[in-house]
């Protein structure tokens, strides 16, 4: 299969294009997600459509560069309008996004159907931008994408601390002298470029997934921004290759949507299985916490018995230890089990005729829970 990619020219171009797109959108999508601007990708891609139509009408060329330039200008104007509305009115940011998205996309559709009606043999194919057609990628397009990828990576490295500051605490950025207006303009322009680059292969409708899904997936696996960006672009690139391979091995399978499917599956798997943040991992942790809590409650009871009986290690029978308010401990068998667990840890000790008492080590542990400024109780 891999050999096939390298031997088949079209396939090779398409996979390289998808990889580059994955790297660009994965990198910039990280910032969109962290800044809670996930919808911006959707707005930008939809708002690009009238630009494609107008560019074709004015220049009359179907060269990708011209069409994408039109797309870029339209999308960029849309972002400026959204920001202006947001700053100068009481309309919320997401409402402004939704509004401009609808207006621009609607206008784009009108333009496309108008173009289809004018008698010109050349117009076919513009509607491909709706869902993307990766097979139309040419070597020229790949070179353009490679340049943009390098440009993106250099910008992110150059403005590393500035973008981080903007995403984490933009007020503070302003206070210490980094104009967030400027930074926001740079970052948003990069995001617009990233989205526009993907229009040809993934299309207007699905492009936002390429921006958001890799970042959401990578966030699950790491707590470091640098690793998050590297992982995110890796996930983007990976889904590009896998999507291309799948769509090329099954006839009539559109590449763009398959890539989006793959990246979505990666995001889902990450959300389920990633350590620490994944749903399943958290369930397992909850289960163990509950078990741990049972033992801790028993230890707590032993501790209060110790405190209330003249602070000596005098043993008590099970009925005394099992106070009413130990919600998790509902049987004597369970209590015994927890006590034996504590014994293994050296926190409690069994005396003759099945009586139990706390040990010095158990005492230390309880005091550390009560008196130390820490959050982990293990």
């Amino acid at each position: 299969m891999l050999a096939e990619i390298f031997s088949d020219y079209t396939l090779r171009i398409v996979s390289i294009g998808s990889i580059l797109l994955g790297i660009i959108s994965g990198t910039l999508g990280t910032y969109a997600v962290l800044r809670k601007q996930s919808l911006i990708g959707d707005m930008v891609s939809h708002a690009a459509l009238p630009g494609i139509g107008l560019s074709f009408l004015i220049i009359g060329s179907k060269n990708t560069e011209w069409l994408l330039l039109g797309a870029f200008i339209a999308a960029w104007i849309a972002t400026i309008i959204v920001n202006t509305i947001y700053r100068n009115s009481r309309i919320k940011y997401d409402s402004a996004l939704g509004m401009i998205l609808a207006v621009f996309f609607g206008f784009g559709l009108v333009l496309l159907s108008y173009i289809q009606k004018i008698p010109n043999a050349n117009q076919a194919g513009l509607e491909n931008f709706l869902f993307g057609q990766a097979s139309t990628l040419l070597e020229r397009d790949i070179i353009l994408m490679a340049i943009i990828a390098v440009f993106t990576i250099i910008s992110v490295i150059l403005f590393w601390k500035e973008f981080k500051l903007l995403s984490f605490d933009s007020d503070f950025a302003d206070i210490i002298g980094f104009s967030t207006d400027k930074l926001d303009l740079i970052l948003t322009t990069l995001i617009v470029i990233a989205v526009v680059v993907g229009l040809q292969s993934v299309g207007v409708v699905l492009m936002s997934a390429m921006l958001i899904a890799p970042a959401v997936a990578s966030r699950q696996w790491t707590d470091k921004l640098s690793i998050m960006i590297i992982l995110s672009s890796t996930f983007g690139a990976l889904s590009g290759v896998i999507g291309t391979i799948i769509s090329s091995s099954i006839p009539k399978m559109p590449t763009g949507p398959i890539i989006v499917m793959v990246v979505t599956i990666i995001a889902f798997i990450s959300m389920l299985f990633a350590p620490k943040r994944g749903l399943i991992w958290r369930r397992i942790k909850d289960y163990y916490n509950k078990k741990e809590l049972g033992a801790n409650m028993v230890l707590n009871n032993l501790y209060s018995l110790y405190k209330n009986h003249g602070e000596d290690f005098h043993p008590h029978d099970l009925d005394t230890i099992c106070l009413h308010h130990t919600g998790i401990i509902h049987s004597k068998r369970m209590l015994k089990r927890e006590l034996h667990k504590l014994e293994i840890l050296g926190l409690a000790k069994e005396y003759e005729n099945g009586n139990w008492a706390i040990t010095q080590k158990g005492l230390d542990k309880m005091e550390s829970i009560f008196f130390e400024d820490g959050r982990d109780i293990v």
Partner: protein
Amino acid sequence: MEDYIVKVNDMTVVYHKKPVLWDVDLKIPPGLLMAIVGPNGAGKSTLIKAMLGLVKPTTGKTTFWGDSYEKQRKKIGYVPQRGSVDWDFPTDVLDVVTMGTYGELGWIKRPGKRERDLAIKAIEKVDMLSFMDRQISQLSGGQQQRVFLARALVQDADIYFMDEPFQGVDAKTERAIISLLEELKNRGKTVVVVHHDLQTVPEYFDWVVLLNRVIIETGPIDKVFTEENLKRTYRSSHENLYRKRDVM
């Protein structure tokens, strides 16, 4: 009286046609701890933000040492409200505190060993060394507040503005923070704090601004922080105030 370091002239801030601050005149003398006190919605945070240019005032201007904020930026430190950022951001304590050095570094340049050392020193000051590599999402409210404080300390400013640094903080941390503020004062710095707890005002601060959209009164605690003035500040809610005082 000594010279004032900050002067606010005729500042009015309007949000959607509703005045939040009305014709505020304020002078801040150097080397003291100052509280901004007033009921909810009195414009306490807005006052700080407008002084620092985060909120655009409709009229009026603020000068720092007779100059604009932009020119004196490096002498001014800021501690925002803890809730103003997303603590689930993928970064750790050291990284956040290092952000305090970015202003001095300027554009593009990266923090190096010097900046790292400064940050570590500040983290030590707020007693968070053992949490240096901790993810910020794993911090308690008090610890988050101390991280923000450390980030401001790194700036080594001459005047600090702090927006509710005691909010959601346990008694131990509150004491730690206040002794830090006193240390700053002893080093000749000025600290302006948006504060909520009236009981502790006379204990913690030297100077007070009573604010309720307009400045009701401002000056040294012993002259200004009187029952009568507080009543005027909390006009509509002064009964609540009494109840609160009785409980204490």
